[in-house]
């Protein structure tokens, strides 16, 4: 195997530290400081992927986030990560990587057989082929198999991730020369600075250009001195291996830091995060994100070995890899010359083809001295080779037009680098609504040099199209002076020279697609977007098919999609589209730049919101008591409530049945701590309650409780609950578990904005009170064992009374209220005693076989009594009258109440609204599906079938030994009346999932309709 290493002193790899790694099952050697891509190139690995659509051989093109081809699957098992760009994977000892395309093998890819038929797979192939939708299901499986790249891990992610909310006065994006100078200026001025760079070390392009001289210093010592000073400033934080991937409103900058990806898996810490999401809020942001070189478009430009000129330079200078021995470079500008000289000095034979007839004379001289064979006024029409490039066919270009003047020679080479100019990395600038401007002189979409200073966004360097280093550094000083002035500070500069040794930049040739003398689509395939196999011909075809907007052309051809997001392809694509449309590039514009700039792992986005901290789980004071008794929990709102308690050998149905019968016939106990509780105090509480509830509160005496329906402005039920009168000016309201916060906000809003004159304050005491509901015929006897200072007799302590006393030695409020229809006492204590009181009640109830029950049983018990659950039996369109709860509405209150006025709306007052009823199936064993539709006839006679309503609650009732259901049904109250029964309108059908059941509309109160039990 040929060694492509050039061991020079400027390389940022450590040749004394060899590393072994594997790619696609073969072992290779690289060095510390390598990327996977540089190591593979150093080993002469060319083809490492197959293309998306045609299965064409592909190799490494770039050296950073722009890489379209070299997508690799890194590591295995739970650690595996799909589609990492080999150019961004830092090499470590033992790294295991695989290809993500090429099936069955990289050498032989089935898709490549389609190559000869590619003319039948033009842009829009899928849209066109599958317009006949019947074909899609047959081909979907095959196509999905062929499409896509890497595979997602099937194991749980073993890594940790977190988020870090950072606050800075200045955030600098990009650790190249400009970013470093900006950070240093801001840091010296004493500002709190965060400097972010995507690479493993600071320096940006200077790492690829070690011979650059700044202020008399070579790049390396200049960087060393600058970085050392930055690191000495305690107010400057430097984040390397950190990619700023989004810039949002209010200067919220998102960046992902790779903390451990560069370490062998065995050396990674299990307690430290693998990656961290920085959420940075910065008063000012300096975008010094640089530029990425775009290639030129020519025939067969996707052969392995065809790269960007700048990446060849980077691999040579930074990684000590000459990607080929015989180098062919194609440029339209000055930027490829430095690399050409460096490669020639490194011993490569270099031919540089400049599309310009008259290149920069300084560069031409330097190139000649270095031994570069410079050919001017030429272009590469197409490359030669099958699995790897072996040469290229040149053409002589017309001096004025981008057309072929004459055929040129064929040049042999084993690597080809092209430069079509620089594309500024404007993405972050554009995420926040900014648009780039086309600079015809620079042939680039640039961020304006003025940035968006009013918003605190500053741009400097190559992002603004200032591609020369000397000019960029001068610009940076101007920009940071303005930035510092906005903080009333001025720069502290040590007078260090920012002069560089660069020649002046001369104009580039305006060329994107090198002509081959043939009409577009007739020559060799000329790829614009490698990752999506989009050719120049595809863009022309899209235009011929009348796609005019670049956003549509993008979506029709797939230009600019994928993990590289068109970093190499977009500008070429826009220019080719402009050419085809006969428009200027600014007229065509760009597609929209959206986050993320480069791919972000889901784990990092989730951060700490995973596992046991995925969502807040609110626990009651009795949680541990439930755990030891086998509770199966369900989330209700954010609360974790016992759903049922499983005993050995039981299933859920058996458990619920046992719990229901215990509460109806013996004694059950339920944790009701989760209900919202609002303490309201003041002279005007009664009046306030009159206004926010539909019913009347004027007469409620201390020691008494009342149920109330809370309505919204439309008269629809939004919450319900029991409110107790503690004293004339002191009430405690309960709300539904899920509605507590909403109700509190609602009440505060009405009080603060509409009725501030009412003398009252309210405070949530939900968490203060732990509540145990002791339910069932034996509940009085149980409570009597632990409560001696309340007279529990039916005459002294009536239904809907409450008493203050002592339960199990703890001060308690005991309410005789019932959500089950049974005799019940709800014991409220300071939650610090909740566990104690629960255990005391369990002990007191043991002789009665007291049975803890959960929400499932609670639902059955309340449905047997026809008690609604707001949000289950109501959906924001149910009035109290729809619920047949006119008794809970007091129409004659002097001030009115929220929602009252809406009762007179024509629809709200309509007679045949959907109303709450009970349903009984013919077959008592059938439990209807909740959500089942109520229809008139068992068979559909016409479509659409008229929907009369739906089942809201449905259970098997152990007490009745049959199924019961609640439903909302059009005109339901009349249907279940005497009149409805006589006319047969009470017989309907419930339809769900293809099955229909006959049902009878009945009263929703199935058990104890007279209420004798709760009053016992």
């Amino acid at each position, binding site marked *: 195997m040929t060694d492509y290493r050039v061991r020079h002193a400027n390389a940022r790899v450590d040749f004394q530290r060899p590393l072994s790694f594997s790619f696609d099952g073969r072992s290779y050697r690289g060095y510390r400081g390598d990327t996977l891509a540089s190591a593979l190139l150093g080993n002469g690995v060319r083809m490492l992927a197959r293309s998306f659509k045609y299965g064409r051989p592909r190799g490494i093109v770039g050296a950073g986030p722009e890489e379209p081809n070299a997508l690799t699957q890194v590591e295995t098992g739970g650690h595996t990560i799909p589609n990492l760009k080999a150019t961004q994977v830092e090499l470590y000892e033992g790294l295991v990587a695989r290809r993500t395309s090429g099936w069955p093998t990289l050498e032989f890819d089935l898709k490549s057989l389609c190559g000869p038929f590619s003319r039948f797979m033009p842009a829009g192939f899928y849209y066109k082929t599958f317009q006949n939708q019947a074909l899609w299901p047959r081909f979907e499986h095959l196509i999905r198999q062929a499409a896509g790249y890497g595979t997602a891990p099937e194991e749980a992610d073993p890594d*940790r991730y*977190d*988020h*870090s*909310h*950072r*606050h800075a006065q200045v955030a600098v994006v990009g650790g190249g020369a400009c970013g470093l100078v900006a950070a240093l200026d801001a840091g010296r001025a004493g500002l709190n600075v965060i400097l972010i760079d995507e690479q493993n070390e600071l320096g940006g392009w200077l790492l690829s250009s070690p011979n650059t001289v700044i202020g008399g210093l070579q790049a390396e010592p200049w960087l060393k001195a600058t970085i050392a000073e930055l690191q000495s400033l305690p107010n400057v934080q430097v984040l390397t291996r950190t990619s700023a991937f989004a810039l949002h409103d209010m200067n919220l900058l998102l960046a992902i830091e790779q903390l451990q990806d560069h370490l062998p898996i065995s050396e990674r*810490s299990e*307690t*430290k*995060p693998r990656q961290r999401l920085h959420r940075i*809020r910065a008063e000012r942001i300096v975008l010094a994100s640089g530029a990425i070189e775009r290639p030129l478009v020519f025939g067969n430009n996707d052969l392995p070995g065809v790269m960007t000129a700048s990446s060849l330079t980077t691999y040579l200078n930074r990684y000590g890899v000459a990607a080929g021995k015989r180098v062919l470079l194609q440029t339209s500008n000055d930027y490829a010359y430095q690399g050409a000289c460096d490669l020639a000095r490194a011993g490569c034979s270099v031919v540089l083809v400049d599309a310009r007839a008259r290149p920069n004379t300084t560069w031409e001289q330097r190139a000649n001295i270095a031994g570069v064979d410079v050919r001017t006024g030429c272009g590469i029409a197409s490359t030669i080779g099958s699995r790897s490039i072996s040469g290229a066919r040149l053409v002589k270009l017309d001096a004025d037009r981008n057309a072929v003047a004459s055929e040129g020679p064929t040049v042999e080479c084993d690597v080809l680098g092209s430069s079509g100019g620089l594309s500024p990395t404007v993405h972050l600038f554009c995420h926040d609504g900014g648009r780039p401007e086309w600079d015809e002189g620079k042939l680039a979409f640039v961020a304006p040099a003025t940035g968006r200073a009013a918003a605190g966004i500053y741009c400097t360097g190559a992002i603004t199209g200032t591609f020369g280093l000397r000019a960029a550094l001068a610009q940076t000083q101007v920009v940071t002076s303005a930035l510092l002035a906005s903080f009333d500070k001025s720069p502290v500069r040590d007078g260090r020279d920012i002069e560089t040794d660069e020649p002046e930049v001369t104009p580039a040739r305006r060329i994107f697609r090198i002509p081959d003398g043939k009409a577009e689509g007739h020559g060799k395939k000329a790829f614009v977007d490698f990752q999506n196999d989009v050719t120049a011909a595809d863009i022309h075809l899209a235009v011929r098919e009348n796609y005019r907007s670049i956003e549509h052309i993008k979506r029709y051809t797939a230009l600019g999609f994928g993990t590289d997001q068109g970093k190499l392809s977009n500008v070429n694509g826009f220019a080719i589209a402009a050419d085809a449309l006969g428009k200027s590039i600014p007229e065509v514009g760009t597609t929209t730049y959206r986050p993320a700039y480069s791919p972000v792992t889901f784990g990092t986005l989730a*951060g*700490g*919101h995973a*596992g*046991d*901290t995925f*969502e*807040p*789980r*609110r*626990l*009651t*004071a009795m*949680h*541990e008591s439930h755990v030891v008794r086998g509770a199966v929990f369900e989330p209700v709102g954010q*609360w974790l409530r016992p759903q049922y308690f499983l005993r050995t050998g039981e299933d859920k149905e058996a458990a619920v049945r046992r719990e229901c019968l215990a509460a109806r016939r013996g004694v059950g106990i339920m944790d009701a701590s989760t209900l919202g509780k609002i*303490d*309201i*105090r*003041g*002279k005007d509480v009664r009046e306030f309650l009159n206004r926010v509830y539909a019913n009347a509160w004027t007469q409620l005496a201390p020691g008494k409780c009342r149920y109330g329906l809370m309505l919204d402005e439309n008269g629809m039920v939004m919450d319900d609950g029991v409110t107790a009168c503690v004293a004339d000016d002191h009430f405690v309201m309960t709300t539904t578990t899920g509605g507590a916060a909403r109700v509190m906000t609602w009440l505060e809003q009405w009080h603060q904005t509409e009725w501030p004159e009412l*003398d*009252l*304050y*309210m*405070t949530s*005491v*939900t*968490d*203060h*009170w*732990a509540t145990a509901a002791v339910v069932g015929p034996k509940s009085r006897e149980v409570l009597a064992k*632990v409560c001696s200072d309340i007279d529990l007799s039916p005459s002294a302590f009536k239904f809907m009374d409450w008493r203050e006393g002592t339960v*199990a*030695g*703890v001060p308690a409020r005991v309410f005789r209220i019932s959500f089950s229809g049974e005799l019940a006492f709800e014991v409220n*204590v*300071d*939650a*610090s*005693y*909740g*566990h*104690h009181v629960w*255990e*005391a009640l369990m*002990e*007191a109830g043991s002789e009665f076989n007291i049975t803890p029950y959960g929400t499932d049983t609670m639902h059955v018990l309340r449905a047997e009594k026809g008690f609604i659950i707001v949000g289950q039996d109501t959906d924001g369109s149910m009035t109290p009258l729809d619920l047949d709860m006119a008794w809970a509405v007091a129409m004659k209150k002097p001030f009115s109440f929220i929602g009252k006025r809406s009762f007179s709306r024509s629809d709200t007052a309509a007679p045949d609204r959907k109303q709450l009823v009970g349903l009984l199936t013919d077959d008592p064993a059938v439990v209807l599906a909740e959500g089942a539709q109520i229809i008139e006839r068992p068979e559909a006679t016409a479509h659409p079938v008229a929907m009369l309503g739906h089942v809201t609650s449905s259970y098997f009732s152990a007490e009745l030994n049959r199924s019961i259901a609640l439903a909302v049904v059009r005109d339901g109250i009349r249907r279940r009346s005497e009149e409805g029964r006589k006319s047969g309108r009470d017989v309907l059908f419930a339809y769900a999932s293809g099955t229909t059941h006959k049902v009878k509309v009945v009263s929703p109160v199935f058990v104890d309709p007279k209420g004798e039990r709760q009053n016992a």
Partner: protein
Amino acid sequence: MPELVMQSPLHAFGLAAQARAIDGTCGVWANEMPLLGYISLRGDPSNSAFTEAVAGVTGVPLPLAPCSFEASGGVKVLWLSPDEWMIVCERRRLANLSRGLVTALKDTRSQVADNSGGYTQVVLQGPNALDVLQHTSVYDFAALAAGRVVGTTFGKSSVYAHRAGDGFCLLMRRSFADYIWRYLVRSATPYGLGIAALKSQSHAGDGVAG
């Protein structure tokens, strides 16, 4: 009847048994200040009858500046909103303080509500305490000045936070305490988390043993 034992919201984590004196082994030290008294107070800050009555009972001037708190004599009064305060005290003083406030404010538009079962506090200190808080909340804790209290997010929940001694004190609702503690543990693990011995189990103030 079972023995009468109070349980703080983080009781299940058994923190008291793990507590030890702070040393150099961990980046972050935390613990729960269990079973204090919490009284929610509401009233009109422009009504001097109200503010003076409260100060008279608590012995602490009622903080009126937004996001401020006052503490002395084992009583801490936190400003929560323009008409809302949280009074934190030792449990044994709760009944007297609560009754005293209700009596003193009898004829003043106001509200006194015992919320002692509903809240707890977690103290946090150590060289990485600030790093840990940065993982949990959008708030810039570095900018939190002594004597100030802020209500802010914590993961997907919320806390009131203020500086206490060399560290921070977080006030949270009982039902969210389990989540918040777990989130704190997750965030602190990379730095090493120690359970700090408290100065006094019943002290309402701010510290852990040095």
